[in-house]
């Protein structure tokens, strides 16, 4: 089949890619748009390393054919913050040592940002549930959960 043009709004900018409809959103982000912050872990929707927001909902970009992302708004880890101004979630992960090898980190950050948007004051149980689709093989999760709790406070301070 011939490639087609697909339009997506990525981190605020309208982007057009020419590719096959079954190309994974993950690959479109990484290879067509050179947004390599989003990682590939398992490639089958189990690990959450490829988490992005699609129309505000958390999704695994490895399980989204780009044809289904046509016309949607995508937010990746690159859209959370920048070097001058990190997102509260990014600052919290830095402060608390919520990253080790870093492979799961972009997905953790996006999933945390999504969780806090839906529930600004999550308790530990809600945090565990919000991140239960994001696997980390280094940290044992304790520091990640601490980072999320810290992000809750930082986000609160920012709002105030």
């Amino acid at each position: 089949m011939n490639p087609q043009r697909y339009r997506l709004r990525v981190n605020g900018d309208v982007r057009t890619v020419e590719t096959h409809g079954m190309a994974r959103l993950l690959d479109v982000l990484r290879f067509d748009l050179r947004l390599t912050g989003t990682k590939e872990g398992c490639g089958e929707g189990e690990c959450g390393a490829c988490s992005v927001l699609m129309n505000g909902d958390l999704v695994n970009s490895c399980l989204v054919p780009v044809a289904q992302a046509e016309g949607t708004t995508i937010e990746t880890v690159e859209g959370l913050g920048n070097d001058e101004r990190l997102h509260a979630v990014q600052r919290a992960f830095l402060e608390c040592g919520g990253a080790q090898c870093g492979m799961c980190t972009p997905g953790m950050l996006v999933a945390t940002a999504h969780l806090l948007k839906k529930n600004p004051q999550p308790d530990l149980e809600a945090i565990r549930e919000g991140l239960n689709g994001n696997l980390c093989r280094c940290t044992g999760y304790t520091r990640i959960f601490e980072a999320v709790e810290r992000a809750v406070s930082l986000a609160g301070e920012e709002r105030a």
Partner: protein
Amino acid sequence: MRSHPAEYEIVSPGTLPGVLRLLDEQPGQWLPVAGATEVMVMFSAGKLGARRLVNLSNLPELQSIRDNAKTLTLGGGCTFSQIRNCSAVHKHFPLLAQAASWTGSIANQNRATLAGNLANASPAADSPPALLAYDAELELVSARETRRMPYREFHLGYKKTALRPGELILSVTLKKHYDGYFLYGRKTGARNAQAISKVCVAGIGRLHDGRAMNVRIGIGAVASAPLRLFGVEQAVEGKRIDDQVIAAARRALDAEIAPIDDIRSIAEYRRWVAGNLVVEFLRTLAASGDTFNPVLARWNALPPTEAAEEILPCCGSTRWARELAALQPLSTPEEVLQAADRVWSDIGPEDWDEAFRSHPRIGDRRPAAHATAQSATWSQQEQSAAATQDAHTLAELAAANAEYEHRFGRIFLVCATGKTAAKMLEILRTRLSNDEATELRETAEQERQITQLRLRKWLGL
């Protein structure tokens, strides 16, 4: 070996008639794809046989939820997130809400659809047992006709369903007539989150004069398709659940299921666990009593003033207690919890304040002047995680409490259950920066959470 996207075609007609026409004109040529959580896994593994796919994810016709007086109809394209966030599902079909929360991770729940789960027909899928227990009905649609079918007739064998070529699951309808039923849902898997079930069970039933009535059980991962346990149901219907009936139910179950060895479990384990879960359901049903919540049943029979007095310690506002008591009888614990929230948000700041004053200071072991004895006991339990001898933390907490009281004119209130003193101190400091209106709303929200926890304790949930 990963598939190459160039070998596949995916089209998006964008309307239901457009999709149905395509399926009708080229029968067997197109694989419908909705949330893609299964299709993309197969695709990436190089195991997706179909080369042409038709996109259902952008069809509004499939995504509606119709909440009628007697039925709830969920569009086949509803995602599990939509289902678990739908208040009517929570109220009338909690086993389905539970199953939706079991289905994969949040990211998968945001994409995977109810119809996809059924049409994919995995024997281990999470939503079928609940839909079987609730005896759901499907509406199937093709370019030629629309037909209805009881869901219990849908699965014909391993990955084999009653769907005809060119047909889609348009919607799933559930009858709202399970108020007062005893409900049981349990899943066993390798981990709590996003595990594919080794065995999953949903059961409903009632007791009448100690006899089991209207028992229906759905079970997954123990046969080539999700199963209604008709044999077990027949073995217990109208009977007192004693050891003899349990034994008969076990025999019926053994004859009905045909578990296999696979990557997740072995047949023998599945057979044991299926038996244990079904027996657990029957025994808890038997123990549930004719009135399923004894505390609620007794409370419903109290005169309004006494009923209000009994629930007052859960909240602390006299008006809240009076207005909730005016809603007697409340038929289920769930209804009590929802009504409590409604009344709380209706009564407003003056009555909220009375509730706030019924709590002790965080870190203070003395009860509040306005507290009932029960309220004081609960306060102690709630603050138990914060019990600390650390004089430094206690002093900081006392100072911050004083600052808070000076600023807002009332004590600092937080839902303390499970929180350490240090955590509460941190929250207190954050909240000191709120403006008054925000802080009032926040305090009311904390009181609401405390009330919910206390109501649950009271009801024995």
